[in-house]
């Protein structure tokens, strides 16, 4: 007997995690880029 409830849960959480984590990563990359630029300016 297939547990469709678990299957839907896996799909929903899976896609959310894939998109969510990669979106967060994009945010983190942009944020670090900004911080690095500010730091470099101050150091110069």
């Amino acid at each position, binding site marked *: 007997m*297939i547990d469709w409830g678990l*299957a839907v*849960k896996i799909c929903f959480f899976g896609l959310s995690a894939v998109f969510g*984590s990669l979106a967060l*990563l994009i945010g983190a990359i*942009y944020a670090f*880029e900004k911080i690095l630029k500010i730091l470099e300016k101050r150091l110069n």
Partner: protein
Amino acid sequence: MLDMALTTGVMHVTVGNVAMWLIGLFFIYLAIRKNYEPLLLIPIGFGILIVNLPLTFLMEQGRGLLWRFYHYGLEWEIIPPLIFLGLGAMTDFGPMIANPKTLILGAGAQFGVYVAFFGALILGFNVREACSIGIIGGADGPTTIYTTVRLSPHLLGATAIAAYSYMSLVPIIQPPIMRFLTTEKERKIVMKQLRPVSKREKILFPLVTVMVICLIVPASAPLMAMFMLGNLFKECGGVRRLSDAAANELMNIVTILLGISVGATMSAEHFLKLQVICVFVMGIVAFAFSTAAGILLAKFMNLFSTEKINPLIGSAGVSAVPMAARVSQAMGSEADPKNFLLMHAMGPNVAGVIGTVVAAGVFIALAG
């Protein structure tokens, strides 16, 4: 005389054994003659051949040589993370850091994983088996192996072979789908040259990524941590010996052990089943949908973006690095010989690896 004959393997050969020898020899032929993933198909083919020789007991639990490789290498989850260490030491995340939007394309290409997951459930596989089959769509061999060993080890041979076969067939599978889903005008879109990425950004990237991904999906930590450690070795520049060892010697050693261990799981009684054909069918479904989803997502992003993305790079979101990116480049230059998409396609390509690891982590966390 008969007793003596019975101690030889010859008297115990079955039709199944012979069929598996032919399959093993076919893989070796493909690897040598057609150059399809030779680094893996040769040890896998050889593993199939020897494990199907009667009375060798190479996979006998607790005693057989190949069982030891399989048990300590795969069941103990040593080999796939070490492969990721080597992959990290060979991967340049620069194109992705320069254009982080391409990460979304790597995520989009994971749709095929879930299409195949539901397809496998409909075909009668249980949830754990469906997870192992679905992950083939990520086109990432070590992740497929890692997930299958955790969730349904009896399918290891089939899923590993399907993943690596389809990865080597990327230049055949993807182009018709890419042509079908894009117009000539879209294929000719020229993308802006990527900005240079500083060394500091490249060093920070693996540190940020391992923290972000492992905090969200802790189950992906074994693969993601090793992937990013390998990349840190490469980018920091201070540990050239470690970086070289991870990318060359260690990678080669674990590839041999991985190949022969996977081949060793393919004995006649485990492999010659209808289930295996279903795994192969769902594998190609997963692959096709992943390719299509990446392209369609790129087209969707173009609706809202002023800087247009060439949708051909969306198909590179399936991991198969760098083959899928090369296919995007080839298709792009076919439409316009002056169009260079390779570096743009490397962004979704390496993002696809991260996306597949995250998808695998969720499968393991929820179905494991």
